[in-house]
Protein backbone atom coordinates (compact mmCIF):
# COMPACT_ATOMS: atom_id res chain seq x y z
CA UNK A 1 0.00 0.00 0.00
CA UNK A 2 1.10 3.51 -0.82
CA UNK A 3 -0.06 6.38 1.34
CA UNK A 4 -0.31 10.12 0.69
CA UNK A 5 3.09 10.88 2.17
CA UNK A 6 4.70 8.30 -0.05
CA UNK A 7 2.93 9.85 -3.05
CA UNK A 8 4.33 13.25 -2.15
CA UNK A 9 7.70 11.65 -1.74
CA UNK A 10 7.44 10.09 -5.19
CA UNK A 11 6.35 13.41 -6.72
CA UNK A 12 9.52 15.02 -5.40
CA UNK A 13 11.54 12.18 -6.94
CA UNK A 14 9.78 12.77 -10.26
CA UNK A 15 10.50 16.48 -10.08
CA UNK A 16 14.17 15.72 -9.39
CA UNK A 17 14.34 13.22 -12.25
CA UNK A 18 12.75 15.63 -14.71
CA UNK A 19 15.11 18.35 -13.57
CA UNK A 20 18.11 16.08 -14.13
CA UNK A 21 16.84 15.20 -17.58
CA UNK A 22 15.80 18.72 -18.58
CA UNK A 23 18.58 19.26 -21.09
CA UNK A 24 18.29 15.74 -22.46
CA UNK A 25 14.57 16.08 -23.07
CA UNK A 26 15.01 19.49 -24.65
CA UNK A 27 17.71 18.18 -26.94
CA UNK A 28 15.44 15.35 -28.05
CA UNK A 29 12.78 17.94 -28.82
CA UNK A 30 15.29 20.08 -30.72
CA UNK A 31 15.88 17.21 -33.09
CA UNK A 32 12.26 16.67 -34.07
CA UNK A 33 10.27 19.35 -32.31
CA UNK A 34 10.76 22.86 -31.05
CA UNK A 35 13.48 22.58 -28.51
CA UNK A 36 11.43 23.05 -25.36
CA UNK A 37 10.08 19.80 -23.93
CA UNK A 38 12.57 19.58 -21.04
CA UNK A 39 12.22 23.26 -20.27
CA UNK A 40 8.44 23.04 -20.13
CA UNK A 41 8.31 19.81 -18.11
CA UNK A 42 10.84 21.14 -15.63
CA UNK A 43 8.87 24.33 -15.17
CA UNK A 44 5.80 22.24 -14.41
CA UNK A 45 7.37 19.81 -11.97
CA UNK A 46 9.26 22.56 -10.19
CA UNK A 47 5.86 24.11 -9.54
CA UNK A 48 4.63 20.75 -8.30
CA UNK A 49 7.64 20.47 -6.01
CA UNK A 50 6.91 23.91 -4.57
CA UNK A 51 3.36 22.83 -3.83
CA UNK A 52 4.26 19.55 -2.11
CA UNK A 53 4.38 20.98 1.43
CA UNK A 54 0.89 22.44 1.05
CA UNK A 55 -0.43 19.03 -0.06
CA UNK A 56 0.66 17.22 3.06
CA UNK A 57 -2.28 15.45 4.64
CA UNK A 58 -4.47 15.65 1.54
CA UNK A 59 -5.97 12.53 -0.01
CA UNK A 60 -4.24 11.02 -3.04
CA UNK A 61 -7.04 11.94 -5.42
CA UNK A 62 -6.71 15.62 -4.48
CA UNK A 63 -2.93 15.45 -4.70
CA UNK A 64 -2.99 14.05 -8.22
CA UNK A 65 -5.62 16.55 -9.32
CA UNK A 66 -3.55 19.37 -7.97
CA UNK A 67 -0.50 18.05 -9.84
CA UNK A 68 -2.62 17.98 -12.98
CA UNK A 69 -3.76 21.55 -12.48
CA UNK A 70 -0.20 22.67 -11.76
CA UNK A 71 0.97 21.07 -14.97
CA UNK A 72 -1.89 22.50 -17.02
CA UNK A 73 -1.24 25.99 -15.71
CA UNK A 74 2.54 26.07 -15.96
CA UNK A 75 3.81 23.70 -18.66
CA UNK A 76 2.01 25.04 -21.72
CA UNK A 77 2.65 23.56 -25.16
CA UNK A 78 1.34 20.06 -25.81
CA UNK A 79 2.79 18.42 -22.76
CA UNK A 80 0.92 20.72 -20.37
CA UNK A 81 -2.64 19.77 -21.30
CA UNK A 82 -1.65 16.15 -21.98
CA UNK A 83 0.17 15.38 -18.73
CA UNK A 84 -2.11 17.76 -16.87
CA UNK A 85 -5.24 16.00 -18.00
CA UNK A 86 -3.59 12.62 -17.35
CA UNK A 87 -2.92 13.50 -13.72
CA UNK A 88 -6.37 15.02 -13.25
CA UNK A 89 -8.07 11.94 -14.67
CA UNK A 90 -5.80 9.74 -12.56
CA UNK A 91 -6.78 11.72 -9.49
CA UNK A 92 -10.43 11.17 -10.27
CA UNK A 93 -10.14 7.35 -10.09
CA UNK A 94 -8.57 7.48 -6.62
CA UNK A 95 -10.71 10.34 -5.31
CA UNK A 96 -10.72 10.58 -1.50
CA UNK A 97 -8.33 7.64 -1.09
CA UNK A 98 -5.56 8.02 1.46
CA UNK A 99 -3.91 4.78 0.40
CA UNK A 100 -3.67 3.07 -2.94
CA UNK A 101 -2.83 -0.50 -3.82
CA UNK A 102 -1.39 -2.23 -6.83
CA UNK A 103 -4.66 -2.33 -8.72
CA UNK A 104 -5.16 1.37 -8.11
CA UNK A 105 -1.80 1.90 -9.77
CA UNK A 106 -3.04 0.13 -12.86
CA UNK A 107 -6.30 2.10 -12.83
CA UNK A 108 -4.36 5.34 -12.45
CA UNK A 109 -2.29 4.46 -15.49
CA UNK A 110 -5.37 3.58 -17.47
CA UNK A 111 -7.16 6.78 -16.51
CA UNK A 112 -4.04 8.83 -17.34
CA UNK A 113 -3.85 7.29 -20.78
CA UNK A 114 -7.54 8.05 -21.20
CA UNK A 115 -6.80 11.67 -20.36
CA UNK A 116 -3.99 11.89 -22.91
CA UNK A 117 -6.20 10.37 -25.58
CA UNK A 118 -9.13 12.61 -24.71
CA UNK A 119 -7.01 15.68 -25.28
CA UNK A 120 -4.62 14.54 -27.97
CA UNK A 121 -6.77 12.12 -29.98
CA UNK A 122 -3.78 9.97 -30.78
CA UNK A 123 -3.43 6.20 -30.82
CA UNK A 124 -0.47 3.87 -30.42
CA UNK A 125 2.11 4.02 -33.20
CA UNK A 126 1.95 7.76 -33.83
CA UNK A 127 5.29 8.44 -32.10
CA UNK A 128 3.97 10.11 -28.98
CA UNK A 129 4.12 9.57 -25.26
CA UNK A 130 1.40 6.96 -25.76
CA UNK A 131 3.97 4.63 -27.30
CA UNK A 132 5.60 4.39 -23.90
CA UNK A 133 2.45 4.76 -21.82
CA UNK A 134 0.31 2.07 -23.40
CA UNK A 135 2.93 -0.73 -23.37
CA UNK A 136 3.83 0.22 -19.81
CA UNK A 137 0.20 0.05 -18.78
CA UNK A 138 -0.27 -3.31 -20.51
CA UNK A 139 2.84 -4.77 -18.90
CA UNK A 140 1.81 -3.50 -15.49
CA UNK A 141 -1.69 -4.81 -15.85
CA UNK A 142 -0.44 -8.26 -16.87
CA UNK A 143 2.07 -8.25 -14.06
CA UNK A 144 -0.59 -7.24 -11.58
CA UNK A 145 -2.92 -10.00 -12.79
CA UNK A 146 -0.02 -12.46 -12.54
CA UNK A 147 0.31 -11.54 -8.87
CA UNK A 148 3.67 -9.72 -8.95
CA UNK A 149 4.46 -7.29 -6.18
CA UNK A 150 4.50 -3.54 -6.76
CA UNK A 151 8.26 -3.21 -7.32
CA UNK A 152 8.35 -5.93 -9.96
CA UNK A 153 5.21 -4.63 -11.57
CA UNK A 154 6.77 -1.19 -11.83
CA UNK A 155 10.04 -2.62 -13.15
CA UNK A 156 8.14 -4.40 -15.89
CA UNK A 157 6.32 -1.17 -16.65
CA UNK A 158 9.58 0.74 -16.97
CA UNK A 159 11.03 -1.95 -19.20
CA UNK A 160 8.01 -1.81 -21.49
CA UNK A 161 8.16 1.99 -21.54
CA UNK A 162 11.83 1.86 -22.46
CA UNK A 163 11.08 -0.53 -25.28
CA UNK A 164 8.34 1.82 -26.33
CA UNK A 165 10.84 4.67 -26.51
CA UNK A 166 13.12 2.50 -28.65
CA UNK A 167 10.16 1.70 -30.87
CA UNK A 168 9.45 5.43 -31.40
CA UNK A 169 12.82 5.68 -33.13
CA UNK A 170 11.64 3.37 -35.86
CA UNK A 171 8.41 5.09 -36.80
CA UNK A 172 7.23 8.24 -38.51
CA UNK A 173 5.42 10.74 -36.32
CA UNK A 174 1.84 11.47 -37.28
CA UNK A 175 0.93 13.51 -34.22
CA UNK A 176 2.68 16.45 -32.55
CA UNK A 177 5.29 18.68 -34.09
CA UNK A 178 7.52 15.81 -35.13
CA UNK A 179 4.86 14.89 -37.68
CA UNK A 180 5.87 17.94 -39.74
CA UNK A 181 9.21 16.31 -40.41
CA UNK A 182 7.74 13.32 -42.19
CA UNK A 183 10.50 10.78 -42.93
CA UNK A 184 13.03 12.99 -41.15
CA UNK A 185 11.53 12.02 -37.80
CA UNK A 186 12.75 8.44 -38.19
CA UNK A 187 15.78 7.56 -36.08
CA UNK A 188 14.86 9.97 -33.31
CA UNK A 189 13.16 8.96 -30.10
CA UNK A 190 10.05 10.81 -29.01
CA UNK A 191 10.61 13.37 -26.23
CA UNK A 192 7.21 12.79 -24.62
CA UNK A 193 7.64 9.02 -24.56
CA UNK A 194 11.02 9.64 -22.98
CA UNK A 195 9.71 12.02 -20.32
CA UNK A 196 7.02 9.50 -19.41
CA UNK A 197 9.70 6.85 -19.00
CA UNK A 198 11.71 9.21 -16.80
CA UNK A 199 8.63 9.66 -14.63
CA UNK A 200 7.79 5.98 -14.41
CA UNK A 201 11.42 5.13 -13.63
CA UNK A 202 11.41 7.65 -10.80
CA UNK A 203 8.28 6.01 -9.42
CA UNK A 204 9.76 2.54 -9.77
CA UNK A 205 12.97 3.58 -8.05
CA UNK A 206 10.96 4.74 -5.07
CA UNK A 207 10.04 1.10 -4.27
Amino acid at each position, binding site marked *: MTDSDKVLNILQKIADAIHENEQFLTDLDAAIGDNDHGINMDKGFQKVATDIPSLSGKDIGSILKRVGMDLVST*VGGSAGPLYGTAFMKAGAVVADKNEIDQEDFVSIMEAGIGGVQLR*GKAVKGEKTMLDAMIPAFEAMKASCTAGDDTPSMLKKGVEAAENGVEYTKTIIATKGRASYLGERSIGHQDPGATSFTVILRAISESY
Partner: protein
Amino acid sequence: MKKIINDVSQVEQEMIQGLVKAHPQYLRRVTDSDVLARAQKKTGKVALISGGGSGHEPAHAGYVGYGMLDAAVPGAVFTSPTPDQVYAGIKDIATDKGVLMVVKNYTGDVMNFEMAADMARDEGIEVEEVVVNDDVAVDGSLYTVGRRGIAGTVFVHKIAGAKAEAGGSLQDVKAVAEKVIANVRSMSMAISPCTVPAAGKPGFEIGADEMEIGIGIHGEPGVRKDTMKNADAIVDELLEKILSDLDYKGSDVAVMINGCGATPLMELYIVNNHVSDVLKNKGINVYKTYVGEFMTSLEMEGFSITLLKLDNETKELLDAQADTPAFKQL
Protein backbone atom coordinates in the same frame (compact mmCIF):
# COMPACT_ATOMS: atom_id res chain seq x y z
CA MET B 1 24.23 32.06 -27.09
CA LYS B 2 24.57 35.85 -27.35
CA LYS B 3 21.31 37.71 -26.85
CA ILE B 4 20.25 41.15 -25.74
CA ILE B 5 18.43 39.96 -22.66
CA ASN B 6 18.87 39.98 -18.90
CA ASP B 7 17.79 36.59 -17.67
CA VAL B 8 16.53 33.68 -19.76
CA SER B 9 13.76 33.03 -17.27
CA GLN B 10 12.49 36.61 -17.52
CA VAL B 11 12.44 37.26 -21.26
CA GLU B 12 8.68 36.87 -21.62
CA GLN B 13 7.87 38.99 -18.57
CA GLU B 14 10.24 41.80 -19.51
CA MET B 15 8.94 41.77 -23.05
CA ILE B 16 5.37 42.10 -21.84
CA GLN B 17 6.35 45.00 -19.61
CA GLY B 18 8.32 46.62 -22.42
CA LEU B 19 5.33 46.27 -24.73
CA VAL B 20 2.97 48.01 -22.34
CA LYS B 21 5.49 50.76 -21.60
CA ALA B 22 6.03 51.32 -25.32
CA HIS B 23 2.37 51.33 -26.32
CA PRO B 24 0.21 52.48 -23.42
CA GLN B 25 -2.17 54.08 -25.92
CA TYR B 26 -2.81 50.61 -27.40
CA LEU B 27 -2.07 48.01 -24.76
CA ARG B 28 -2.99 47.15 -21.21
CA ARG B 29 -1.89 44.12 -19.25
CA VAL B 30 -4.82 42.20 -17.84
CA THR B 31 -4.39 42.09 -14.06
CA ASP B 32 -2.60 39.05 -12.68
CA SER B 33 -1.99 37.56 -16.09
CA ASP B 34 0.33 37.80 -19.08
CA VAL B 35 -2.53 38.82 -21.36
CA LEU B 36 -2.25 42.00 -23.40
CA ALA B 37 -5.61 43.57 -24.14
CA ARG B 38 -6.69 46.81 -25.78
CA ALA B 39 -6.00 49.82 -23.58
CA GLN B 40 -9.72 50.61 -23.74
CA LYS B 41 -12.00 47.62 -23.77
CA LYS B 42 -14.38 47.87 -26.69
CA THR B 43 -17.91 46.67 -26.01
CA GLY B 44 -20.78 46.01 -28.37
CA LYS B 45 -18.68 44.02 -30.80
CA VAL B 46 -17.42 40.47 -31.09
CA ALA B 47 -14.13 40.23 -29.20
CA LEU B 48 -11.16 38.56 -30.87
CA ILE B 49 -8.41 36.79 -29.01
CA SER B 50 -5.34 35.06 -30.32
CA GLY B 51 -2.00 33.99 -28.99
CA GLY B 52 0.59 31.29 -28.91
CA GLY B 53 4.15 30.99 -27.79
CA SER B 54 6.23 34.15 -27.56
CA GLY B 55 9.08 34.65 -30.00
CA HIS B 56 6.85 35.48 -32.98
CA GLU B 57 6.73 39.22 -32.37
CA PRO B 58 4.98 41.34 -33.49
CA ALA B 59 2.52 38.43 -33.36
CA HIS B 60 0.29 38.57 -31.52
CA ALA B 61 0.40 41.51 -29.10
CA GLY B 62 1.40 43.80 -31.97
CA TYR B 63 -2.01 43.17 -33.53
CA VAL B 64 -4.08 44.19 -30.55
CA GLY B 65 -5.97 47.36 -31.35
CA TYR B 66 -8.62 48.95 -33.51
CA GLY B 67 -9.70 46.72 -36.37
CA MET B 68 -7.80 43.63 -35.29
CA LEU B 69 -7.53 41.77 -31.96
CA ASP B 70 -8.94 42.58 -28.56
CA ALA B 71 -6.37 40.53 -26.69
CA ALA B 72 -3.27 38.44 -27.24
CA VAL B 73 -2.05 35.71 -24.94
CA PRO B 74 1.71 35.13 -25.08
CA GLY B 75 3.06 31.87 -23.73
CA ALA B 76 6.68 31.08 -22.98
CA VAL B 77 8.91 31.25 -26.05
CA PHE B 78 7.48 28.84 -28.67
CA THR B 79 5.25 27.25 -26.06
CA SER B 80 1.54 27.72 -26.25
CA PRO B 81 0.02 29.63 -23.35
CA THR B 82 -1.73 27.74 -20.61
CA PRO B 83 -5.54 27.55 -20.38
CA ASP B 84 -5.75 29.78 -17.31
CA GLN B 85 -3.99 32.58 -19.22
CA VAL B 86 -6.21 32.22 -22.26
CA TYR B 87 -9.21 32.10 -19.95
CA ALA B 88 -8.13 35.31 -18.24
CA GLY B 89 -7.96 36.95 -21.66
CA ILE B 90 -11.36 35.68 -22.76
CA LYS B 91 -12.94 36.83 -19.52
CA ASP B 92 -11.44 40.29 -19.82
CA ILE B 93 -12.54 41.02 -23.36
CA ALA B 94 -15.81 39.08 -23.51
CA THR B 95 -18.82 41.07 -24.67
CA ASP B 96 -22.43 40.04 -25.08
CA LYS B 97 -21.69 39.54 -28.77
CA GLY B 98 -19.30 36.71 -27.94
CA VAL B 99 -15.63 35.88 -28.35
CA LEU B 100 -13.77 34.40 -31.31
CA MET B 101 -10.50 32.60 -30.67
CA VAL B 102 -8.04 32.63 -33.58
CA VAL B 103 -5.78 29.65 -32.99
CA LYS B 104 -2.86 28.46 -35.07
CA ASN B 105 -3.00 24.76 -35.79
CA TYR B 106 -0.55 23.25 -33.33
CA THR B 107 -1.56 20.47 -30.99
CA GLY B 108 -0.53 22.48 -27.94
CA ASP B 109 -2.25 25.68 -29.00
CA VAL B 110 -5.46 23.94 -29.92
CA MET B 111 -5.59 21.96 -26.67
CA ASN B 112 -4.82 24.91 -24.41
CA PHE B 113 -7.24 27.27 -26.14
CA GLU B 114 -10.00 24.69 -26.14
CA MET B 115 -9.54 23.98 -22.45
CA ALA B 116 -9.82 27.73 -21.84
CA ALA B 117 -12.93 27.98 -24.02
CA ASP B 118 -14.53 25.22 -22.00
CA MET B 119 -13.77 27.12 -18.79
CA ALA B 120 -15.31 30.29 -20.25
CA ARG B 121 -18.35 28.52 -21.63
CA ASP B 122 -18.94 27.08 -18.16
CA GLU B 123 -19.45 30.68 -17.09
CA GLY B 124 -21.87 31.41 -19.89
CA ILE B 125 -19.47 33.22 -22.20
CA GLU B 126 -20.13 32.47 -25.84
CA VAL B 127 -16.85 31.35 -27.39
CA GLU B 128 -16.15 30.20 -30.92
CA GLU B 129 -12.89 29.05 -32.41
CA VAL B 130 -11.19 29.07 -35.79
CA VAL B 131 -7.96 27.19 -36.45
CA VAL B 132 -5.55 28.62 -39.01
CA ASN B 133 -3.67 26.08 -41.11
CA ASP B 134 -2.04 27.90 -44.00
CA ASP B 135 1.32 26.11 -44.18
CA VAL B 136 1.43 23.94 -47.30
CA ALA B 137 4.86 22.60 -46.40
CA VAL B 138 3.30 19.91 -44.30
CA ASP B 139 0.86 17.24 -45.20
CA GLY B 140 -2.69 18.36 -44.62
CA SER B 141 -4.21 14.92 -44.84
CA LEU B 142 -6.64 13.50 -42.32
CA TYR B 143 -4.04 11.11 -40.95
CA THR B 144 -1.80 13.88 -39.65
CA VAL B 145 -2.30 16.84 -37.37
CA GLY B 146 -2.88 18.83 -40.55
CA ARG B 147 -1.19 21.91 -41.86
CA ARG B 148 0.40 24.35 -39.43
CA GLY B 149 -0.72 27.90 -38.88
CA ILE B 150 1.90 30.47 -39.83
CA ALA B 151 1.97 34.01 -41.26
CA GLY B 152 -1.44 33.70 -42.91
CA THR B 153 -2.84 34.10 -39.41
CA VAL B 154 -2.24 37.84 -39.67
CA PHE B 155 -4.73 38.04 -42.53
CA VAL B 156 -7.27 36.28 -40.33
CA HIS B 157 -6.66 38.85 -37.58
CA LYS B 158 -7.01 41.69 -40.06
CA ILE B 159 -10.11 40.55 -41.87
CA ALA B 160 -12.04 38.98 -39.00
CA GLY B 161 -11.01 41.97 -36.87
CA ALA B 162 -12.47 44.38 -39.42
CA LYS B 163 -15.68 42.35 -39.58
CA ALA B 164 -16.01 42.46 -35.81
CA GLU B 165 -15.27 46.19 -35.75
CA ALA B 166 -17.97 46.68 -38.38
CA GLY B 167 -20.51 45.09 -36.06
CA GLY B 168 -20.68 41.56 -37.48
CA SER B 169 -22.22 38.87 -35.31
CA LEU B 170 -20.13 36.06 -33.86
CA GLN B 171 -21.31 33.78 -36.66
CA ASP B 172 -20.47 36.43 -39.30
CA VAL B 173 -17.01 37.02 -37.89
CA LYS B 174 -16.34 33.32 -37.59
CA ALA B 175 -17.60 32.74 -41.13
CA VAL B 176 -15.33 35.35 -42.65
CA ALA B 177 -12.39 34.07 -40.61
CA GLU B 178 -13.07 30.64 -42.02
CA LYS B 179 -13.30 32.06 -45.49
CA VAL B 180 -9.86 33.56 -45.06
CA ILE B 181 -8.52 30.29 -43.71
CA ALA B 182 -9.97 28.41 -46.67
CA ASN B 183 -8.29 30.84 -49.07
CA VAL B 184 -4.89 31.44 -47.52
CA ARG B 185 -1.76 29.39 -48.08
CA SER B 186 1.84 29.98 -47.02
CA MET B 187 5.23 28.39 -47.14
CA SER B 188 8.56 29.25 -45.49
CA MET B 189 12.25 28.61 -45.74
CA ALA B 190 15.24 29.46 -43.54
CA ILE B 191 18.95 29.83 -43.93
CA SER B 192 19.73 30.06 -40.24
CA PRO B 193 18.18 28.63 -37.08
CA CYS B 194 17.14 30.45 -33.93
CA THR B 195 17.87 29.87 -30.29
CA VAL B 196 15.15 29.59 -27.67
CA PRO B 197 16.68 31.60 -24.79
CA ALA B 198 15.94 28.92 -22.19
CA ALA B 199 17.39 26.22 -24.46
CA GLY B 200 20.61 28.14 -25.03
CA LYS B 201 21.42 26.59 -28.37
CA PRO B 202 19.97 26.62 -31.88
CA GLY B 203 17.05 24.40 -32.80
CA PHE B 204 18.89 22.94 -35.76
CA GLU B 205 22.29 22.97 -37.36
CA ILE B 206 22.72 24.09 -40.90
CA GLY B 207 25.72 24.10 -43.20
CA ALA B 208 27.21 27.18 -44.81
CA ASP B 209 25.71 26.19 -48.13
CA GLU B 210 22.43 24.73 -46.97
CA MET B 211 18.89 25.87 -46.41
CA GLU B 212 15.82 24.40 -44.75
CA ILE B 213 12.68 24.28 -46.87
CA GLY B 214 9.26 24.14 -45.25
CA ILE B 215 10.18 25.34 -41.80
CA GLY B 216 7.60 26.17 -39.19
CA ILE B 217 7.73 29.20 -36.94
CA HIS B 218 9.25 27.53 -33.90
CA GLY B 219 12.83 27.14 -35.00
CA GLU B 220 12.15 23.51 -35.82
CA PRO B 221 13.90 21.95 -38.80
CA GLY B 222 12.07 22.12 -42.12
CA VAL B 223 10.57 19.28 -44.06
CA ARG B 224 13.69 19.13 -46.21
CA LYS B 225 17.28 20.33 -46.23
CA ASP B 226 18.65 21.44 -49.56
CA THR B 227 21.73 23.15 -50.91
CA MET B 228 21.36 26.90 -50.98
CA LYS B 229 19.79 28.33 -54.12
CA ASN B 230 19.30 31.84 -55.37
CA ALA B 231 16.28 33.90 -54.36
CA ASP B 232 14.32 33.37 -57.57
CA ALA B 233 14.75 29.60 -57.46
CA ILE B 234 13.61 29.49 -53.83
CA VAL B 235 10.59 31.64 -54.65
CA ASP B 236 9.74 29.36 -57.56
CA GLU B 237 9.78 26.34 -55.30
CA LEU B 238 7.68 27.87 -52.53
CA LEU B 239 5.18 29.36 -54.97
CA GLU B 240 4.83 26.12 -56.84
CA LYS B 241 3.84 24.33 -53.64
CA ILE B 242 1.38 27.08 -52.74
CA LEU B 243 -0.16 27.37 -56.18
CA SER B 244 -0.58 23.63 -56.57
CA ASP B 245 -2.45 23.48 -53.26
CA LEU B 246 -5.08 26.05 -54.17
CA ASP B 247 -6.18 27.36 -57.53
CA TYR B 248 -5.44 31.09 -57.60
CA LYS B 249 -5.68 31.46 -61.35
CA GLY B 250 -7.55 34.58 -62.43
CA SER B 251 -8.15 35.78 -58.91
CA ASP B 252 -7.14 38.83 -56.92
CA VAL B 253 -4.70 38.03 -54.15
CA ALA B 254 -3.14 39.68 -51.16
CA VAL B 255 0.55 38.82 -50.87
CA MET B 256 2.57 38.77 -47.69
CA ILE B 257 6.34 38.45 -47.80
CA ASN B 258 7.19 37.79 -44.20
CA GLY B 259 10.66 37.93 -42.68
CA CYS B 260 11.44 35.34 -40.02
CA GLY B 261 13.31 37.77 -37.78
CA ALA B 262 16.78 38.36 -39.13
CA THR B 263 16.19 38.72 -42.84
CA PRO B 264 17.15 42.13 -44.21
CA LEU B 265 14.16 43.97 -45.64
CA MET B 266 16.28 44.40 -48.76
CA GLU B 267 16.14 40.65 -49.31
CA LEU B 268 12.39 40.52 -48.71
CA TYR B 269 11.93 43.08 -51.47
CA ILE B 270 14.17 41.05 -53.77
CA VAL B 271 11.91 38.10 -53.00
CA ASN B 272 8.84 40.19 -53.72
CA ASN B 273 10.27 41.30 -57.02
CA HIS B 274 10.16 37.74 -58.28
CA VAL B 275 6.94 36.73 -56.51
CA SER B 276 5.21 39.62 -58.18
CA ASP B 277 6.55 38.65 -61.62
CA VAL B 278 5.63 34.99 -61.27
CA LEU B 279 2.08 35.77 -60.18
CA LYS B 280 1.63 38.18 -63.06
CA ASN B 281 2.87 35.57 -65.52
CA LYS B 282 0.42 33.06 -64.12
CA GLY B 283 -2.53 35.40 -64.52
CA ILE B 284 -2.92 36.07 -60.82
CA ASN B 285 -3.64 39.68 -59.93
CA VAL B 286 -1.80 41.15 -56.95
CA TYR B 287 -4.35 43.30 -55.15
CA LYS B 288 -2.17 44.33 -52.25
CA THR B 289 1.28 43.41 -50.94
CA TYR B 290 2.65 43.42 -47.42
CA VAL B 291 6.41 43.13 -46.94
CA GLY B 292 7.96 42.99 -43.50
CA GLU B 293 8.11 41.03 -40.28
CA PHE B 294 4.66 39.85 -39.29
CA MET B 295 5.20 36.41 -37.78
CA THR B 296 8.79 35.82 -36.77
CA SER B 297 10.83 33.09 -35.13
CA LEU B 298 13.20 35.08 -32.93
CA GLU B 299 16.39 35.72 -34.91
CA MET B 300 15.83 33.11 -37.60
CA GLU B 301 16.87 34.21 -41.08
CA GLY B 302 14.44 33.21 -43.78
CA PHE B 303 11.07 34.17 -45.16
CA SER B 304 7.60 32.97 -45.93
CA ILE B 305 5.28 33.74 -48.78
CA THR B 306 1.56 33.96 -48.09
CA LEU B 307 -1.14 34.25 -50.73
CA LEU B 308 -4.73 35.07 -49.86
CA LYS B 309 -7.38 34.74 -52.52
CA LEU B 310 -9.79 37.62 -52.15
CA ASP B 311 -13.42 38.29 -52.95
CA ASN B 312 -15.31 41.55 -52.60
CA GLU B 313 -16.07 41.05 -48.93
CA THR B 314 -12.53 40.15 -47.91
CA LYS B 315 -11.08 42.93 -50.06
CA GLU B 316 -13.17 45.51 -48.32
CA LEU B 317 -12.29 44.14 -44.89
CA LEU B 318 -8.62 43.92 -45.77
CA ASP B 319 -8.71 47.57 -46.81
CA ALA B 320 -10.47 48.72 -43.65
CA GLN B 321 -8.66 50.92 -41.16
CA ALA B 322 -6.52 49.27 -38.54
CA ASP B 323 -4.57 50.84 -35.72
CA THR B 324 -2.41 48.55 -33.65
CA PRO B 325 1.22 48.73 -32.56
CA ALA B 326 2.44 46.67 -35.52
CA PHE B 327 -0.26 46.97 -38.14
CA LYS B 328 -1.62 50.32 -39.11
CA GLN B 329 -3.70 51.10 -42.13
CA LEU B 330 -5.24 54.43 -42.99
